[in-house]
């Protein structure tokens, strides 16, 4: 028996979250004694990098292909899983992973769970897993019946672990006449780490007073090496692009560090960010509910504090 890890790509490169998936597969395999295989579909310039994460073999399908037709990808993944004897297929909880999981689960007649944040625990032929529900306001334990499983794993659930040994890469070409979703264009929004994968996030809200004041947020993000985000009212007022909106109806994130500037911390916002490992809140209102969810707080005018904080980070970096 085997575990197949679907390794997600974006912009012609295997994503950071895919490395975590291989480590997750490896840790799951240690419990079940199975072998791990990796599958990459389409262009992947950095494919050599994924060979050091414990897979027996990486299958690279159609290395020139661009775009993602869920139906076609699910059919290819199913037939490769069958060939390898893989009863479990794992992927990241990314836009591709979430699209693929449901389709594949129906084709494989598998139990399906998305957004998993624990390693499967075996209970006979069942497995027990954990995920968050109610947009992060609660957690849940789920029992799934085998023998087939399809899971998407939350980003930053575990650290990818590099190994000495290298796995072999086998390149294949599959027939693409059944591809029905034709890609016209893929445009990259920014060179920064996308929000769901970001380990460091600097986010700002209405306390900024207007889009013209955002340079201090961007400067802070640059000096920390963070991705920028914003609250819903900010995105709704078009102060910032919609893809930056984090919260219940925006992107849910779980970075190591979340710095919230001028965000009061409405329950809908907290739902999208409360899985962050460390939360820093900067707000001049001592009653802001966000302070209750924070690890560190500074109660002061953000226009005074943020420039000073940028200098502190610069000082820290030059001395380390």
């Amino acid at each position: 028996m085997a575990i197949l890890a679907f390794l997600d790509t974006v912009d012609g490169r295997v994503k950071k979250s895919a490395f975590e998936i291989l480590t997750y597969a490896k840790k799951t395999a240690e419990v079940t004694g199975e072998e791990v295989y990796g599958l990459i579909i389409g262009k992947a310039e950095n494919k050599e990098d994924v060979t050091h994460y414990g897979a027996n073999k990486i299958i690279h399908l159609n290395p020139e292909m661009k775009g993602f037709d869920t139906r076609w990808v699910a059919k290819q993944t199913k037939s490769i899983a069958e060939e390898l004897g893989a009863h479990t297929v794992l992927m990241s909880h990314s836009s591709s992973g979430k699209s693929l999981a449901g389709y594949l689960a129906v084709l494989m007649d598998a139990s399906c769970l998305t957004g998993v944040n624990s390693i499967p625990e075996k209970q006979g032929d069942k497995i027990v897993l954990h995920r968050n529900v109610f947009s992060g306001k609660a957690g849940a334990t789920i029992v799934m019946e085998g023998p087939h499983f399809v899971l998407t794993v939350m980003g930053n659930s575990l650290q990818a672990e590099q190994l000495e040994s290298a796995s072999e890469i086998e390149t294949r070409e599959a027939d693409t006449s059944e591809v029905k979703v034709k890609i016209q264009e893929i445009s990259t929004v920014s060179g920064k780490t996308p929000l769901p994968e970001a380990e460091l996030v600097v986010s700002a809200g209405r306390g900024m007073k207007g889009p013209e004041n955002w340079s201090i947020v961007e400067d802070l993000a640059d000096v920390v090496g963070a991705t920028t985000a914003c609250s819903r009212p900010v995105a709704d007022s078009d102060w910032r692009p919609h893809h930056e909106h984090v919260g219940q109806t925006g992107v849910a994130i779980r970075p190591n560090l979340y710095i919230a500037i001028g965000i009061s911390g409405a329950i809908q916002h907290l739902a999208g960010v409360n899985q962050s490992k460390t939360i820093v809140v900067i707000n001049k209102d001592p009653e802001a509910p966000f302070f209750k969810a924070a690890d560190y707080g500074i109660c002061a005018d953000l226009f005074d504090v943020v420039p000073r904080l940028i200098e502190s980070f610069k000082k820290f970096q030059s001395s380390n």
Partner: protein
Amino acid sequence: MNLLVCISKTPETTAKISFKDGNTQFDSEGVQHILNPYDEWYALVRAIELKEAFGGSVTVVNVGTSENDAVIRKAIAIGADKAIRVNADPSSAAFVAKQIAELAQKESYDIIFTGKETIDYNGSVVGSMIAAHLDWPYISFANDLDLEGSTATLKREIEGGIETSQVDTPFVVSAAKGMAEQRIPNMRGIMMAKRKPLEAVEPVAFDDKTKFVKYELPDEKGSVKMIDPENTDELVRLLHEEAKVI
């Protein structure tokens, strides 16, 4: 254009979440329910706009008990032509998808819409499962959908970028923010909603393999450590030495 929009009922976004029966059930006591925002604001409204532009009809489908009729009526008031409710307590995404796929097989829909996720279970898989049952193409998280004849052009947000693609009907699409603008039902819509058909049908048998057995609320954060606004160096030190995140 024969359009089907899958709608869910969810607790409203500010609802306080709690559990009962030894943390095995969601406690809906005193909780207000709403149409899942992604279904209502984006999927449903875009379907109505397409109907207004090209003619045809918009059907909404929900899997749930008669308690859901109020939110289903709201979808009709916004502009759907009719509604079907599969009379069952939805136990999982797989169950819901199976029920909707069964109904869709009996009709010839051009496009099936879902929201990108529900705000309670956040699974994001109902749409792709329906597509798989029907062997249709599936496009997820689309924030723009235009039609010319039977060819749709869609934009979807992928991590760090935007992908533009084309696909012919029939297909299943999950709608994300940006696909349409929220519509508030007007008086005429609300009056009409009472007269438009809401049909309840019985579910087909389905063996559910995924069970949510227990819930828990997250640990309360320890109390926040307040830092002197003049001493931002101290915050950086703590992030490095105590939290170890930089």
